[in-house]
């Protein structure tokens, strides 16, 4: 999946829309017997692996589920504390699923505001007058592209580093925002765009097929990721796993 997330930040730095489309995260489920050879610690309302690495479970992975039931922060589905539960030999053998923890919506809000501040700092650091803020942030696993409109709304896209055409995607998202959010008279400006109700279908345009183009570029009938597949036209077509039909296709 080439596009990882989309964030829309309003003038004041508040997150008004967020969409994640990660590939399935690396998760590992194993059955353990007492004593557990991984060292667990409590951090930020989650139980993380502090030390010990085996079979796809790495340091920093969080406990996602015990015996098939998803955990709720630091408590199991039954309300017991995870660390206590795993410290009690009577509960073993136990099957625990570890994986990279997802960001909660509060964390995303915080990160968006922080990015807004960094964006402002980026423009102030500039030796030239009237510089734009951060347009791209590159790491080895993703590239963050940001586009600020003349009215102060920022569109941020996290994508694969090799993905081209993100500029046109940002413009397209701007058009979609002006259509779906603004043309809805019940939507108040600068407020979060809800997924349902007044903002019904706001994430659909980002994932639904582009109407103006013909058959799906990757030929899958589900056509869910057509819009993004179409963008890949700017690249020489790599053979990759199609995200909606999970088949190897020239996409």
């Amino acid at each position, binding site marked *: 999946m080439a596009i990882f997330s989309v964030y829309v930040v309003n*003038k*004041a730095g508040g997150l008004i829309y967020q969409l994640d489309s990660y590939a399935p995260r690396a998760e590992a489920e194993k059955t353990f017997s007492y004593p557990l050879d991984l060292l667990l610690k409590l951090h930020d309302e989650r139980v993380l692996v502090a030390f010990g690495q085996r079979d796809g479970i790495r340091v920093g992975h969080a406990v996602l589920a015990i015996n098939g039931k998803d955990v709720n922060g630091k408590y199991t589905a039954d309300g017991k504390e995870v660390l206590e539960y795993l410290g009690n030999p009577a509960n073993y053998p136990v099957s625990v699923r570890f994986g990279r923890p997802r960001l909660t919506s509060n964390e995303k809000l915080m990160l968006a505001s922080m990015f807004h501040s960094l*964006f*402002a700092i980026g*423009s102030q650091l*500039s030796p030239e007058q*009237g*510089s*734009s*803020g951060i347009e791209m942030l590159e790491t080895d696993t993703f590239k963050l592209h940001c586009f*600020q*409109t*003349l*009215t*102060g*709304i920022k569109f941020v896209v996290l994508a694969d580093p090799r993905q081209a*055409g993100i500029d*046109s*995607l940002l*413009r*397209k998202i*701007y*058009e979609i*925002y*002006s*259509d779906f959010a*603004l*043309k809805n008279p019940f939507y108040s*400006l600068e407020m979060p765009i809800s997924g349902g109700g007044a903002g019904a279908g706001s994430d659909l345009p980002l994932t639904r097929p*582009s*109407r*103006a*183009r013909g058959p799906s570029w990757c030929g899958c009938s589900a056509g869910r990721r057509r819009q993004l597949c*179409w*963008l890949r*036209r*700017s690249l020489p077509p790599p053979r990759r796993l199609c995200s909606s039909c999970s088949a190897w296709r020239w996409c």
Partner: protein
Amino acid sequence: MSRQANRGTESKKMSSELFTLTYGALVTQLCKDYENDEDVNKQLDKMGYNIGVRLIEDFLARSNVGKCHDFRETADVIAKVAFKMYLGITPSITNWSPAGDEFSLILENNPLVDFVELPDNHSSLIYSNLLCGVLRGALEMVQMAVEAKFVQDTLKGDGVTEIRMRFIRRIEDNLPVGEE
């Protein structure tokens, strides 16, 4: 590339008669509700303002114009791009004040007033006041405080419709970053 893809949705044409009728129904209903021309004018301006703050994003998204550096550029963009895009007309820009902060938009034909005749009891009604609100709201979102008012109106017997736009000041609070 994706701009062309969107042109498909642009070619959905709507009947301009329906638009004129809708606007007419709106104004007559407001007249019935408020019974006072001044109040109706104010309401039309407020409604136009609400439209303008949203329309500007649509305009910027579709037209790809860059930042305007002075009022003359703004006037050009309003007349040649914005009016063309939304109403299909291209007003002319005249009567610049010596300081360059006021100008007039001359509209030869106004699509909002096709077939409209103002009755005598509504002589102080500014029928197309929505347009003034739209201009005000849209420019406010790009940090320009302006005042727009009608000085001539074909409905009142003048030859052309003239909107006078005056630049008040640049809005300095809540600036997007990098545009100080």
